[in-house]
């Protein structure tokens, strides 16, 4: 059934009305192809980030220094797998399968958050990722709970709730370590030094270099600009860093009473561009890991499919 030009105009009008009302677009609703493509790209990237994000933290599960922390960390990495699942499901409502998206991740045709291309080098990184990386993710994601596409928005509500929990756990780990030995405090500071700038990069390039932001905001897929979110994150993090007793590695960071915000330095955007293009410290490692796990699991998935097919046969006639 093809859609005539007039039909299309009417559909576009309806669609824009839904957006204007801040209502949700649902899978069965008509939507413009570009909107669908943008959503698929964004949801997929988000899902991939959850899955790849399991690696840097998973790196420390076997070395967690207390059983309580081991349980917390394992549960967190498990939650990330769960988030990946919700998001791949949301993407499936737009007509793309998890397999397809995984294929695109492994072949490098779809991205994931550049932050996960940095290594975790000490147990403090588990805390710092919770505090700064999950913190930045939440700042990015809370507005997405109100995003225009229904399944995505609902997935985000659930995810944000869990992410806040993770963020508090990360902060609490750092807080505990800061009350520990001198070596532990040094470990926390060193970790914060490594992750601060990459965390700021998580909001994406400055607004004047972010070409897709306007369209995404018009479609209600995005609700705030990169720089707005970055500012919010910095303002939130400064008092937390003080509470922890760590220094943020930015000499330009200072309260600006006039703006009612902190002024702060710019991350190294060349580094960001390099990491996005595949030249971060862990890009090839992360993809190789995912590819290996996926390839090594192929025989299991095939067995499950074959088994299900065999079971279905006798009862299906």
């Amino acid at each position, binding site marked *: 059934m093809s859609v005539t030009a007039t039909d299309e105009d009417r559909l576009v009008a309806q669609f824009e009305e839904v957006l204007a009302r801040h209502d949700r677009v649902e899978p069965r609703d008509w939507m413009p192809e570009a909107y669908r493509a943008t959503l698929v790209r964004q949801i997929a990237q988000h899902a991939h980030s959850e*899955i790849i994000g*399991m*690696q840097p933290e*998973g790196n420390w*599960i*076997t*070395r*967690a*220094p*207390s*059983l*309580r*922390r*081991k*349980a917390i960390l*394992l*549960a967190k*990495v*498990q939650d990330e*797998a*769960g988030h*990946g*699942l919700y998001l*791949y499901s949301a993407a499936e409502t737009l007509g793309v399968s*998890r397999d397809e998206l995984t294929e695109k991740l492994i072949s490098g045709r779809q991205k994931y958050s550049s932050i996960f291309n940095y290594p975790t080098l000490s*147990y403090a990184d588990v805390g710092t990722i919770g505090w700064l990386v999950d913190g930045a993710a939440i700042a990015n994601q809370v507005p997405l709970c109100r995003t225009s596409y229904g399944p995505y928005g609902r997935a985000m509500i659930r995810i944000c709730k869990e992410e806040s929990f993770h963020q508090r756990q990360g902060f609490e*780990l750092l807080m*505990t*370590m800061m*009350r*520990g*030995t001198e*070596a*532990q405090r040094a470990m926390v500071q060193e970790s914060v030094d490594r992750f601060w700038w990459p965390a700021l990069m998580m909001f994406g390039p400055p607004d004047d270099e972010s070409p897709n932001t306007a369209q995404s905001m018009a479609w209600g897929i995005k609700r705030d600009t990169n720089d707005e979110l970055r500012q919010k994150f910095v303002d939130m993090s400064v008092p937390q860093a003080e509470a922890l007793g760590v220094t943020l590695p930015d000499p330009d960071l200072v309260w600006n009473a006039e703006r009612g915000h902190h002024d702060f330095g710019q991350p190294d955007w060349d580094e960001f561009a390099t990491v996005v293009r595949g030249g971060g410290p862990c890009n090839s490692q992360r993809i190789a*890991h995912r590819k290996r*796990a996926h390839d*090594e*699991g*192929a*025989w*299991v*998935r*095939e*067995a*499950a*499919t*074959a*088994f299900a097919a*065999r079971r279905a046969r006798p009862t299906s006639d």
Partner: protein
Amino acid sequence: PQVLAAYALGLGDDALVLSHRLSQWASNAPDLEEDIALANVALDLLGQARLLLARAAAADASLVPALPAGSPVPAEDALAFFRDEADFRNVRLVEADNGDFAVTVVRLLLFATARLAVLQRLVASRDAVLGAIAVKGVKELTYHRDYAARWFLTLAQGTAESRRRLEAGLALVWPLHDELFRTHAVERAAAEQGVGVDPADVAAEVDVLLEQVLSVSGVARPAVAQTGPVAGGTGRDGRHTEAMGRLLAELQVVARAHPEGRW
């Protein structure tokens, strides 16, 4: 209380070490669903391990390794991170690397089936704490056993490749199966005192259950010898496999680098 403590320690170490192995599947499983499921099992076992180690420490403080005065390390962590290999009391079945998914499924099936049967009796322990741990554990182990049995059947009847791997996994893991039912002096004493379970008492019922899984799956019991003791001792005596030292090196490295650390 020494008997109770030693008994709880053995069960706790089993859970701790298998949990550690299963946790290594995180981000490595064949599919997201299995990643989540295996993490669930690992978390359940880790939870049991913590309760059991805490019970052991409470019943016999002399088991807990000494740490520098004023160290904030809790007893469960002192036991997990500061004991040496020979002081671990887990069966050897839980020690080896995970191998592929088939090996993991087989090991979990053998472990969970036996452990569930033990916990079902341990519910009646004269030690109320162990009894309560068992009540919680029964629910969890039932899920673990069913999960493993379901995958055992799936792999057995999936593809030729999955069946080949399942049978190879079974042959690999099977030699360490009997140790689960070989009564150790500590277990005998715990059973006599009514606080623990003699694992030999559940051997027959476990065997019936495994036989069901094998026969439904159409898989034969492997014809391989059981793994013998070392100088007369097995895992429950602190005589482990070569995998154990490496496992502990990784498990304990951060904690030991910071014996006075807070986490």
